[in-house]
Each structure stands twice: as structure tokens, then as C-alpha cells.
């Protein structure tokens, strides 16, 4: 008994390698980043100050870009949820063999590089792309639609590219819901929709929130998709950070922009986590 207790109390050591890895490759660079953001001069002379933050907050364009980016994430995440939920629901219900096939199809996009996937979308969405050729051939529009280099295009591509991040947590949660609960609800006279809204949806809330957090953070930071599909006339935060860090070699400002962006995303994620806690409290008392 005492041995078992000792074993248990030593188990935390299993987390040490990962912790160490995180401290060296994540926490340390993060602090470095925060430190650099307080450098007052572009050349990082050592003078400290809040210059970079006041410069960021002092320009309305920066705040607009931040707002656009956070909103872009909301749009793409909502679409992921709307398309992903029925898919996950289906996957949780079909036979094991079909389930394997569907899950394989869902994760297929992650297997290819994001650059390749995004270039494929350029071919599809372009002015002379498959989609526009079909639209024009069917007579739905006399001229090709403006999809590439538009926010609509970016949202469409993000929805496809990030879909697995929404579907996989949803499948896990939906599979765990006891099917007897839905049967009981229906036996007690609830319609299929009522059963869904009263039983399935609330019970799948943890999956929805996990999926939303994953998808949202991936969408707002999707540099490759945003810049290749959006072009330069749509500016989002990752591109702005890249411009400052690489094109202009202004690391302190790039760091400050990154910190502001990170805080904004963390606030949103924090709200979602708080929401999930309150839901859990409601459901499980």
C-alpha cells in the first residue's frame, strides 16, 4: 500500500521531459519575445520603454487589422462548426468500418502540407479556376466571381483546411454520449429536434468548445492561407507581424504586435473556457 502511494506520488516525474521541452522551446522564447517588445529602439540598443505598444495602439489601422483578424476567425470557426457538427454526428453513428473511412477522409487534409493545400485552392477559386469556369458555363454569372484575394475566399479555404480540428474533438465527445439517453427522451415523447436540443447538444458542449478553441486559434494565425488566398490587399495580424519582423527587421515592434495579438486571442479562448465551465456546472452540478 505504501509502495503504491509512493509510486503515485512519483508519477509526476513522467511529465518532466515534456515540461523541460516546453520550458526550453516555448516558455523561454515567449519570455524573450515579451522582453524584446519592451525595447524602445528598432536596433535594440537596450533602452526600455512602452514605445512599441503606444505606436501599435496609436494607429487606427493596427486596431482595424486586429479586429478584422479576430472576426475572420469567428466567421471561419462558425462555418467549421455548422459543417463539422453534422459530419461528426454522422461519424459517431455509422458502422465501425465506415467510421474508419470517414475519419480517414477528415484527417486527409492534415496529411498534406498547408502550402500545397492552399495552392490547390488557388487553382479552384481563381478567375480561370474550376469553380468560376463552372459558374460561367452554367450561366449563373456572366463574369467570373471575385473569390481569390477576397475575404470570402479566405473563409472558404480556412473552413476546409481547419475542419479536422473541429470534427475530431466533436466525434470523441459524441461517441461517448450514451445512446440510451436519446432513446429515453424519445420514449418520453420528445421529438427528434427536441431530443437534439435538450439532450445531444448540451452533452456535446465540451466537444464544441474544444473544437471551437482549436479551430479559432488555428484560423486567426493561419499565415500561409491568409496571405496566399487573401493577397496583400487584405491585411491580417500574422502578415503584419511578418512584415515588421522580416521585411522591416523591426523586431521590437513585431514582438509588441505579437504580444497584443496573443493577449487578444487568449482573452477569447479564456471566455470560451469560462463558458464551458459554467455549462459543465449547469449540467453536472
Amino acid at each position, binding site marked *: 500500500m505504501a509502495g503504491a502511494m509512493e509510486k503515485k506520488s512519483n508519477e509526476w516525474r513522467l511529465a518532466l521531459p515534456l515540461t523541460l521541452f516546453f520550458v526550453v522551446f516555448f516558455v523561454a522564447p515567449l519570455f524573450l519575445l515579451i522582453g524584446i517588445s519592451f525595447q524602445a529602439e528598432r536596433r535594440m540598443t537596450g533602452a526600455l520603454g512602452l514605445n512599441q505598444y503606444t505606436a501599435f495602439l496609436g494607429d487606427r*489601422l493596427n486596431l482595424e487589422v486586429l479586429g478584422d483578424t479576430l472576426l475572420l476567425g469567428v466567421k471561419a470557426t462558425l462555418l467549421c462548426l455548422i459543417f463539422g457538427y453534422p459530419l461528426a454526428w454522422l461519424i459517431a453513428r455509422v458502422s465501425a468500418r465506415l467510421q474508419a473511412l470517414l475519419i480517414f477522409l477528415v484527417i486527409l487534409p492534415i496529411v498534406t502540407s498547408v502550402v500545397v493545400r492552399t495552392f490547390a485552392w488557388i487553382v479552384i477559386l481563381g478567375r480561370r479556376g474550376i469553380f468560376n469556369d463552372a459558374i460561367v458555363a452554367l450561366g449563373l454569372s456572366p463574369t467570373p466571381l471575385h473569390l481569390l484575394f477576397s475575404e470570402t475566399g479566405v473563409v472558404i479555404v480556412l473552413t476546409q483546411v481547419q475542419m479536422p480540428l473541429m470534427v475530431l474533438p466533436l466525434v470523441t465527445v459524441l461517441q461517448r454520449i450514451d445512446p440510451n439517453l436519446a432513446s429515453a427522451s424519445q420514449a418520453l415523447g420528445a421529438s427528434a429536434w427536441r431530443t437534439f436540443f435538450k439532450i445531444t447538444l448540451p452533452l456535446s458542449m465540451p466537444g464544441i468548445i474544444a473544437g471551437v478553441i482549436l479551430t479559432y486559434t488555428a484560423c486567426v494565425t493561419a499565415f500561409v492561407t491568409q496571405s496566399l488566398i487573401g*493577397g496583400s490587399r487584405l491585411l491580417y495580424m500574422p502578415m503584419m507581424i511578418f512584415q515588421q519582423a522580416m521585411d522591416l527587421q523591426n523586431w521590437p515592434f513585431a514582438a509588441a504586435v505579437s504580444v497584443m495579438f496573443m493577449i487578444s486571442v487568449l482573452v477569447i479562448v479564456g471566455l470560451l473556457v469560462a463558458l464551458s465551465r459554467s455549462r459543465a456546472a449547469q449540467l453536472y452540478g
Partner: protein
Amino acid sequence: MFDISRRSLLAGAAAAAGTSLLPSGAFAAEELVAATFGGTWANVHKQILAPYFTKKTGATVAQSPMLATAQIAKLTAAKGGPAPFDVAMLDEGPALEAIDAGVIAKYDASKSPNFASLNKKFQGEYGPAITMQAIGIAYNPKTVKAPPTSWADLWKPEYKGRVGITSLASTLGLAFLLDINRLEGGTEASMEPAFKKLKTLLPNLAAVSANFGAHGALFQQGEVDIGVQNFKFAEELKAKGVPIEFVRVSTGTPGWKTTMHVVNGAVKPDLAYAYIDSQLSAEVQSAMQKSPWNVIPTNSKVPYEGLVASKIAKTPADLDKMVFFDWQKVNKGRADWTAQFNREIRV
């Protein structure tokens, strides 16, 4: 099934991580790491420069395609330790920044016999110019019937929504803006005329590509019919069968030097000199001048031939007639111009 595929995914990821952790060619006797630009430059360096260098020195070279600005960022980040690569390849503006940041070394001409064959203006103190870049208008001859002759053609109403330019992240985008500014009466110290003119181009723009790589794809996919382009790049696309024609603009061809440098803290400086010297040799430069590469030579022993002679310069004096900019001043203004560019072209 899910488990299996997840496991194989993990195995794949682990394998990929493993290979990337190994320094490439760690077991080769001597290997130089050299930066190059992406796309056409990476190809020409792999096919012509690398074999020549290996034949001459017996060492191999790993060529890593990187934007000029990314090279400077990596060198700056590695300052004080061994450099991540030994040879940098930069355009004129970024080269000045690299000198400023202290990441490239003064070029020791005594270690580079071919340096003496360069025209004086290509013998940079911090490294030689390996070529001149020249820009003009590229267009799709299938959709643009009257060949354009000047930048003003991009403003023609018939090209509404058909014009492509690039952001100021590329020297191409910068040089275009600088030249518009010059023609509108501005100087590197005041870019207002260019921005005013740029605003009137907005209705014609189909795309502003985020970088030079994305810009080439626009022509290939028919996203744009006409736009600014680099001579060498347009000619390579044409050789590949893309419907594209390059023309010089009547107001003078804007150009700049592209240079190679031994970096500060180079791990193998001798090989770095041998590599750059190979790039300066008459053999390499005349091979690179041939189609589809069309690299403008800087070695005075290589006469201009082919498309370089017919489209850009027949004699070295023709190169002097190109339009040049003061990159020192450009670097000073670039941060402000980028901010203004972001603001004005934003949808």
C-alpha cells in the same frame, strides 16, 4: 483504424522531425551552405553553379532558398555564434541593411581571382554584384492586343481589374513605386507623388501579391493580364510555355544589383570565397546568360548575347542608362512607406 492512422501519422512526424534535426549531409567531407533566392534562382544555381563549384573544389554545396530579408533576419538572430549559412545573396537595398546590421563581411579580393574581371561598378566593398536585375511590363499576348510601352499603360481603363503588382516586400514592388514616384516628380525623400498616383491605379488592380513568388503564379494562372515583372523571370515563364511577353518601359528600365557576400562568422570562409568566385567566372556567367535563365552577366569577359542583348543591353554602356535608386535613402523610408502602402491598398 483511427488508432492505426494516428500511430502512422505520429511515426511519420517523428521520422520527419528526425531527418530535419540531422544536419543535411553531416557525413560529407566538406559542405558549404549557401543562401539563394527561391524559384528560378534556386534552379539556375543548382544546375550551373553547384556542379561547377564541386568540380573546382571537390566540396559540395547545400543551397537554401530564402528571401533576402529572411537571410538578414536569420543572420541577425545567430549573431555571435556560428552562422547558419556562409554565403548570402541579396538585392541592393537589403545588402545595405545587412552591412548596417553587421552580418556580412568585407570582401577580400585577393581570395577571388575573378573579382578583377568585373566592371568597377560591380566590385562592391562587401561583395560583388553577380547580376543586374531589370524590370518592365509583362503581359499576356492572348488578352492584351496592343503591346504596352510605358507604366502609364497599366492605368488604361480597358485593364480594369486585370493589373498585377507586388507589395513592397519585394524589390520589384519597391522599384516600381520608386519609378512611378520619379516620373511624377518625387524623390526618395518624398514619396507622396507615387502614393497619389498609386491610388488612381486601384480600380485596375486584380491583385497585389504578398511576395515575388506568388506574383509569378498570377501570370501563370491567368489571374492578371498585365503587370510589373522582372525581365529574367518573365522570360523563364515564357520559355516554359506560359503566354507572357516582357517589354521595357520607354521611360528607362529600372534596375538594381544583386550581390553575393561572405557572412560574418562564416564556418567555411574559404569555400565561401571559392563559391562566390565560381559565380563570377566567365564560364558560369555565360552559361547562366543562355535561355531560359537570361542572367545579365557582370564579368566583363562575357559579351551580352541572346535575350539579354536584344531586350536589355548590347554594351555595358547600355546598362549605365538604366534607372537606379538611392537604396540608402530607400531603406530609411521603407518602414513608413510599407505602413502607407498597407493603408492605401487595403480593401
